[in-house]
């Protein structure tokens, strides 16, 4: 198979690298959603801890 001309080949190579970057970005997005959930829970718990501190005094 003869090598593809550069402009043709470039599309495929770019495609492959875009796939790789996209995959990592999707992963980051999923982890970001998880982080947000953790943050929400933490805020919730911090509120509980604070309220408890007030009633104990």
């Amino acid at each position, binding site marked *: *198979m003869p*090598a*593809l001309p*550069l402009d043709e*080949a*470039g599309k*495929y*190579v770019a*495609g*492959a*690298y875009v*796939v*790789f970057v996209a*995959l990592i970005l999707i*992963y980051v997005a999923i*982890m970001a959603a*998880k*982080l947000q959930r*953790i943050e929400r*829970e*933490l805020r919730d*718990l911090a509120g*509980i*801890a604070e309220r*408890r501190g007030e009633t104990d005094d």
Partner: protein
Amino acid sequence: MRINLRTLSIASVVMIAASLALVFFYAPLDADQGFIQKIFYLHVPLAIVALSGFVIGGLHAIRHLHTGDRLHDARSYVSIHLSVIFGVGVLLTGAIWAKASWGKWWVWDEPTLVSFLIVFLLYATYYPFRYAIEDPERQARYASVFAITAGAFVPLNFLAVRLAENLVHPRVLATAEGGMPAKMWLTFLVSISGMALLWATLVRFELTAKSASAQLARLRRALEPGRPERRAPVPARAAPTIAGGAE
């Protein structure tokens, strides 16, 4: 596993940047494949790292069964999880490479890629398998047995698929087996190191996230003892009413 997450992150960024620079500005054009061959530096490291990750998942699973320490199960799970994600990348970049080289998105006579598909299909069942088992301790043990079984499967599968090929088609990586120029080798080695570092970083990242969730659940239990836990199969009962009443 002792290097901290920050160092690991920086190292993988540096290594991947270096590998990209080498791939596009240093490595020579391949005589047969031309520019298309650049996919090699992405596809092959992804595949090797994913397969190594599966094997590492199996090794952690052995340690888990050996010691009974659930930490090893978490490591096994995260290793397999990231290798599955890398596996998606392997199949997609493999398809693109096949299209560029042969004009078809999928070819059945490339044994390495076909083997990888089968391995990927097996590991994709790890999730439904794992989450179908309710008791967390048993889940961890069964998942470890799965990881070990699948780990033994990987080489056997490569052997069988390789033998099934009548070796009519020359392999794409023939250049890699024959005399690959030193510049290509260097680029390849840097690429694979970068990919391995990326994998390790993400494993650490995911483990840290898992641990954070677990600590959070612990905190919630400590702060709200009476509240039913979300993931517990049986809700915890109300506080004891009869403790100390036995006088």
